[in-house]
């Protein structure tokens, strides 16, 4: 293992041209915050783009600037890790609409005030357009691979469908080619919680020093449940009480699971912008790769020459195995080389971020295959 720091300081690109959006609008002066690790080789063909999930960011293996916690995928990315920075040049960019450095609703609009709800509604494909512009500026024509879990997987699939020659391989973990009614429903609960908070002020809360923290934390609590498995929650908390011997016959957090969720909700508000949460969840809800391609998912990949790998987890009920299998079948029908495996892991949707040794082997094997 290298002991020298592998971290390049966080970087940012300001796009020279307006970024066209699916909504028909366009955005001027978009800034894309990103990090890179490892070294781009002379042939410029060893780059891997890692795409992040809903509340993720570009701090892949470097500490989060606000929380100080280790990067979100330190267990997967680094020297000698499955995504090996001794071998690959790894790029991770904060998505359009987010709040961690890339332009989003909390950014300043041309009139000098925060965008708020004036920010255009964006899509997964818009995020991908941002990534591709970044690749252009880095001089990377063809990626060795794109790797993403959850919403990161949606970006990977969108890139595969819309920018066919930009990557040789796509690794899509715990993801889907379209948001289901249930996915949209959970997101709508979160959005309504934010918008029902008086402190939201129609999204124009930035000058008040206080946002809709209550609403955002409820949104996070609801979402967090969908990231875990029932068995995982039972094992971690069961019906155990929080620092007390008896139920209080009140509405304090009697149960450990309540206390845990409240903490998750509250700590989330320290690091995330409520409007960004609205915009990114909307982008995910709008995602339907088949719809973009005449209703046939296989058509989305026609003409591609890439390799694909889909991984699902048996306890993930947010993007269950059937969604990954659906993508694998479409890729099969398109005649493309595709791998698909449902791994067993107890952590629900969050399994892609946690200790699942079989995932490490699959990732290393898939990326290591030279072509």
């Amino acid at each position: 293992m290298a002991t020298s720091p592998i971290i390049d300081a966080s970087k940012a690109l300001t796009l020279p041209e307006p970024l066209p959006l699916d909504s028909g609008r366009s955005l001027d002066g978009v800034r894309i915050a990103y990090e890179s690790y490892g070294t781009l080789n002379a042939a410029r063909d060893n780059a891997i783009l890692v795409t992040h999930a809903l509340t993720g960011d570009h701090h892949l293996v470097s500490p989060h600037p606000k929380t100080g916690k280790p990067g979100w995928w330190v267990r997967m990315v680094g020297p000698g890790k499955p995504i090996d920075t001794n071998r690959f040049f790894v790029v991770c960019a904060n998505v359009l609409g987010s709040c961690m450095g890339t332009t989003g609703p909390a950014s300043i609009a041309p009139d000098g005030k925060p965008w708020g709800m004036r920010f255009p509604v964006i899509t997964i494909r818009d995020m991908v357009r941002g990534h591709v512009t970044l690749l252009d500026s880095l001089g990377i024509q063809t990626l060795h691979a794109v790797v993403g879990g959850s919403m990161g997987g949606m970006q990977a699939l969108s890139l595969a469908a819309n920018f066919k020659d930009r990557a040789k391989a796509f690794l899509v973990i715990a993801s889907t080619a379209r948001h289901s009614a249930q996915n949209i429903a959970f997101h709508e609960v979160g959005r309504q919680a934010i918008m029902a908070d008086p402190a939201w002020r129609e999204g124009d809360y930035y000058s008040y020093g206080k946002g809709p923290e209550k609403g955002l934390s409820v949104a996070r609590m609801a979402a967090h449940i969908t990231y875990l498995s029932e068995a995982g929650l039972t094992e971690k908390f069961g019906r155990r009480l929080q620092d007390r011997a008896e139920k209080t016959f009140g509405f304090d957090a009697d149960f450990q699971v309540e206390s845990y969720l409240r903490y998750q909700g509250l700590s989330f508000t320290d690091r995330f912008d409520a409007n960004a949460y609205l915009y990114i969840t909307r982008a995910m809800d709008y995602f339907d790769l088949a719809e973009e391609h005449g209703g046939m998912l296989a058509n989305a990949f026609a003409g591609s020459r890439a390799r694909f790998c889909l991984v699902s987890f048996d306890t993930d009920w947010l993007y269950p195995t059937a969604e990954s299998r659906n993508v694998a079948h479409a890729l099969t029908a398109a005649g493309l080389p595709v791998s698909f495996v449902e791994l067993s892991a107890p952590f629900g949707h969050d399994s892609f971020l946690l200790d699942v040794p079989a995932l490490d082997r699959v990732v290393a094997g898939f990326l290591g295959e030279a072509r």
Partner: protein
Amino acid sequence: MTLRPDLAVIADNVASGARILDVGCGDGALLAALRDQKGCDARGMEIDAANVAECVARGLSVIQGDADKDLAFFPEASVDYAILSQTLQTTMRPDQVLEQLLRIGRRAFVSFPNFAHWKVRTSLLWTGRMPVTRLLPVAWYETPNIHHATVNDFRDMVKARGIKVEQAWFLRGDRQCSAAAASFRAEHAVFLLSR
């Protein structure tokens, strides 16, 4: 690494550079051999997740799936050879799986244990019990082999379906044996089929 005898027969008779789909590819031994030694575009399907993970870790393109259900998604005539080794007898509908193989592949290799091998016959005759042999090592109540067939059964089925037997190989132990009295003497059969 040495391939299982029936897989070695298949590997020897696949053209270099061919496109392959191995249905029930296990840990990917045949796929890896065909890729590394014959430059094949070798892909697989396998029902067991641990095996699929092993295949992907070896850099193979393998999709987790069930031969009875998931072959329908493969395009017609998309490979030169569809391979089904020691899997036919585990499927719900061997006849339909065979039709799928010959829809997807221009040719199909099918290998299976011969239930009419003399050891099986004598075991059934003398003990009156379902045989447990080297190739069929699991007791009847827990075996994945739900559709045992004999060489003659198989020939009857392909004939009735208008499928052509291009070539057949028979194995006793780890060695090939002659087609003469194969129904009785072969532990294992490998057929190359086409329409």
